């Protein structure tokens, strides 16, 4: 595919931003405080937006500029603001989560990255974008965010993992194909936003009923009903 701007330095920069995104995903795995998780999420959004912007510049795809701005608005400004506001109103901004076995989680995370790269290798052979080597990073981000969700027991932190997963997806889409069609990207952003409003409502419902946002109180639905 021909590029609008031939620049090895630009491609290096995109790769660097990809590395940052991956780094942030690892930092999320180890982060104990809710507020620092939100900050990491905003950072990830920023790197993502910068990398989309750079890819847009290199490839000359105008759509990607819009996408970069949307990402900046939604993932760096709006969602972190909503999340911070929620933590404040729910009074959980000082929450510290006891994580079990961070080293083991990290090693699993490294395994996930290796797995993602090996899964992505047949895909990159078929790819024609300059940034194709980053498809593996995108997939790794998706799976690492999934790991964040699994290891957390609090509603808020699970949601941040969920949103970070969407970052990974967007990153993959940008680097594999220079972005999805505009309608689809807009619709996905709308879904994320509605999702954010709904989980906001949810937090209050959970707290009202359980008097805590800790999911360890969620035990009633264990599947071990006695036999009839």
């Amino acid at each position, binding site marked *: 595919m021909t590029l609008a701007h031939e620049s090895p330095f630009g491609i290096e920069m995109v790769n660097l931003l990809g590395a940052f995104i991956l780094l942030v995903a690892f930092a999320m795995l180890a982060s104990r405080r809710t507020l620092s998780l939100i900050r990491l999420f905003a950072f990830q959004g920023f790197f993502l937006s910068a990398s989309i912007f750079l890819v847009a510049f290199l490839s000359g*795809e105008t759509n990607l500029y819009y996408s970069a701005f949307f990402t900046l608005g939604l993932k760096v400004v709006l969602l972190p603001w909503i999340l911070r506001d929620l933590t404040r109103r729910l009074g959980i901004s000082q929450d510290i989560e006891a994580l079990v076995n961070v080293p083991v989680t990290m090693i699993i995370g490294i395994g996930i990255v290796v797995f993602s790269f090996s*899964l992505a290798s*047949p*895909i990159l*052979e*078929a*790819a*024609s974008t300059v940034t194709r080597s980053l498809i593996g990073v995108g*997939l790794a981000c*998706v799976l690492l965010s*999934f790991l964040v*969700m699994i290891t957390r027991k609090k*509603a808020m932190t*699970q949601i941040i993992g*969920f949103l970070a*997963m*969407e970052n990974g*997806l967007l990153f*993959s*889409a940008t680097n*594999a*194909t*220079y972005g*999805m*069609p*505009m*309608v*689809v990207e807009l*619709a*996905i952003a*709308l*879904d994320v936003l*509605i*999702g954010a409003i*709904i*989980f906001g*409502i*949810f937090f209050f*419902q*959970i707290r*009202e*009923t*359980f008097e805590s946002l800790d*999911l360890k109180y*969620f035990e*009633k*639905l264990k*599947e071990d*009903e*006695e*036999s*009839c």
Partner: protein
Amino acid sequence: MLILPVLGFPLFSAIILAFTGHRSWASRVNGALSFVTFIASLFLARKVLTGGPILLANETFYVDSFNVFLISLTAFVGFTTALFSGPYMKIEEKKGKVNPKVLRLYHSAYQVFLFTMLLALLSNNLGILWVAIEGATLATVLLVSLYRTRASIEAAWKYFILCGVGISQALFGTILLYFAAEKILGPGGESLLWTHLYQIRFQLEPTVLKIAFVFLLVGYGTKVGLAPLHNWLPDAHAEGPTPISAVLSGLLLNVALYALVRCKVLVDGALHSPLASEMMMGFGLLSIVIAVFSMLRRKDVKRLFAYSSIEHMGIATFAFGLGGALATFAALLHMTVHSLTKSSIFFSVGHATQISGTQQIPEIRGLIARVPRLGWGLLLGSFAILGMPPFGVFASEFIVLSVAMKQSPWTTPILLVSLAVAFGVIFFRVGGMVLGKGEKNTMEHPPALFPIFLHLGLVLLLGLFIPPFLAHWYEQAALLIG
């Protein structure tokens, strides 16, 4: 423009019902507007029947023989469930379980849910299809937690997180699909249009499509309720209000399976190998077995039938996996009859739990003695879902079994044992609930019996005779899916 009313009325109703707040007529408006949507869908169906597949609005919407009957079915079950939810919610209101504020959310979100289902079915764009299915989750998640009990909130949270994670995998699959298509069709919106993808399906890069299908299967499979990704389903069905259980089982699972099959058609074209079919057979079979053996220990009646939904979606997935005109025909028929039967069962179960004040099977007794027609409705519905002739489920299961016996004989014993276990479990549990002594009951509000028997009548009809136009659609769709 026949599509506009089909999509417009649910959206319009959602806005009306959200803005007027809860009035005594809200449930009637809900029913009436759903009826209008259903009529609009019939007009659309007639157009397709006479003129063949239609592409509309700059190729944004596509209706062919595969989705046209699902559109009518969705609109129909949406309408009958709205009819059922009127009396059901009146009784809940009298019991003090819901208040006007909650009902306003309920009615509005119900219509949004219908809108997203119909959008998913009508869309030609695989990206929009994904967005619509995710939208359906978002629309129903607050409905599952409608009663605000601990169990219902926990179920809704599980539903939200598991389906959200699952559906993210499907998005990754869709991205890969777009990636493969973009190399042939060039960048832009066209590369996600199913009609365009269908034309180039033989040229798509096989390795990419293989990986894409794994993600799509995991993603949409979570929504279909395929084992081992089914954990959200029994909880969401058991803890939410019963009309929502009915539409989740009857509609949402179908639409997710529809999305999966649409993608499978493309993957089959690219792969020249039965990988996708084999994976669907495997997941289908696993779901049947796990669902059936999970039923054994269930005491909650809605949970029991939720597992039965997993079983039946497993049968349909398995049948799509078997492939060939006959098995696909059976799968489509099975989707139709399961949707009708299961929603009818949930209608009866909903009223039965209201009479008994509990969902625990051992405590529901003597339904036929207490409210005769309701008891009979539940009994007949259970007969239908167990595949007793002459109901429609018998026909579809019989075809699936005979094709399985011919194409992969090793699956037959597994299927037969599972069906037998399901038969035993449901037969005795339901028997215990409907038979026995009981005082004649007067309910707070007359139950909605009409939708129960309307559905059962249709299932009976489909077992005895499939109208030629429907058979034609099934055959056309079976040719397409292969």
